[in-house]
């Protein structure tokens, strides 16, 4: 963490719900406040989300923006070990795939965090 930046946890900025489409999980991320949505659009890139999930998913990530709903929708390909009845996973239908997203820690400029009244993490993660 460089000087002049702070850390915020996605859990404190958004709520999520996910479901399945075959071997793909979807992950809807909804901003808790409208003024935080542009930050999510900027930070939660498909690449960033792909890197966050790492070995949890086998394929690429697509991203779609829904500004009216202050939401982003991610499609995580190859997330369900075959999906549906083929999958042996506890979470075969991807119901809680989106909660893993909420563990993401974002680094943002302290000035922006203050302007947006972001719930900043007080300890270093």
């Amino acid at each position, binding site marked *: 963490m460089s000087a002049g930046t702070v850390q915020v946890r996605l859990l404190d900025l958004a709520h999520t719900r*996910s*479901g399945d489409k075959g071997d793909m999980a979807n992950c809807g991320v909804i901003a808790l406040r409208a003024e935080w949505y542009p930050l999510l659009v900027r930070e939660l890139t498909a690449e960033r989300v792909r890197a966050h999930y790492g070995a*949890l998913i086998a394929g690429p990530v697509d991203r*779609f923006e829904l500004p*009216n709903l202050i939401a982003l*929708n991610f499609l995580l390909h190859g997330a369900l070990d075959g999906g549906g009845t*083929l999958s*042996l996973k506890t979470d075969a239908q991807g119901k809680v795939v989106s*909660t893993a997203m909420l*563990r993401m820690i974002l680094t943002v400029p302290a000035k922006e965090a203050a302007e947006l009244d972001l719930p900043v993490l007080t300890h270093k993660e």
Partner: protein
Amino acid sequence: MTKIVRVASGQGFWGDSLDAPRQQVEGGPIDYLMLDYLAEVTMSILQKQKERDPAMGYARDFIGAIESVLPGIVERGVKVIANAGGVNPVACAHALIAAIAKAGHAGRVKVGVVTGDDLLPRIDELIAAGHALKHMETGAPLSSVRNRVLSANAYIGSKPIVEALEQGAQIVVTGRSTDTALTMAPLRHEFGWAADNWNQLAAGIVAGHILECGAQSSGGNCLHDWWTIPDLANIGYPIAECQSDGSFVITKHPNTGGRVSVPSVSEQLVYEMGDPHSYITPDVVADFTSIHVAQDGANRVRVHGITGGPATPFLKVSIAYRAGFKAVGSLVYSWPDAMEKAEAANRILRERLDRLGLKFDQILSEFVGANATHGHLSGDGRDAPEVQFRIGVRGEDRASVERFTREIAPLVLNGPPSVTGFAGGRPKVEEVIAYWPALIDKQVVTTQVEVMS
């Protein structure tokens, strides 16, 4: 005065609350009750039941649901739309008519049946005519699993349900209608939306999407401030109060628990979402990025501004086929070193399976309580009070899967210590019925409507 049509959701899946339909009919004014019973795997389960007994193959819970709402719907003129017919809508309708007669309402309730979605008897004819029914994800032709196909149903739209309502049906039973058609059809019927009123039709789809999972839009499974959502034991199922311009308000009956809020509705809107610009249905392609939501008083959310465009020339087909066998077993290991013990059990068991020469298409080990759903993001799981070691296998050879199920229990006495949680006995071997999504030319599928009493 603006005409309002109230569509209430009373069932989000087969197995949902038995009381919800009656609560929706009796808890306040509604015009239509929609009941969604079908998921992708449900059709194949129903097909197996029909093979055993030709009078079965529909969601039998539905008959009980109708018995519970019958006095209310007769008195208030509430209409019911349900895809409870599964793979045998006609048998479902006959059972329904018998139940209506038994309750003393013979001849007073017209039942409409929609058929034509079942493509199973036509599969060979369709393949021969050049319909490859390619798997939508892999591109493989259906012929590659033809002899393992159990059921094949086209997802049909709202039109035949509208026809049944026009013919005076009070209860409409369908097979594999889309979940959203169950809500869209009454709106088309009431407001007379034409087949190219794309924006209104898209709004009907969005209303349907919000209602189709039952209370999942009225505070159930809602992550946003979940601990503040009141009285989930008495949760109110969602109701859409719809207008002819396509706008609607999502609400629930008074004196019920749960919460209808912008966050609770938004969570349902993004549930199972693909590309939000094109939510494809048989009737219309809806644009979910056009949706506006706003709080409109307590437990009321106004949804408006929805746009859509022409439907595609295809229908989706849901095909189920036999895809081998699977079994999943588990053991629970306790502190101290719960995670280390569970990991040791996994190594030992896998070595046993190797020595036995058992081959599987897939083996998956999970450590529930440590990292089963969040993987590397969960931390290392050290010092957990207990960890459930869960292991599953899947393969074509039933005997190999059967043998796997006998290898878990011995670990209790010959593996790592502090193990418990095996009271359930040997895991069961299950046949895997897999899902094969495909597209078919709309022209090929013709639906029929019959209204009886």
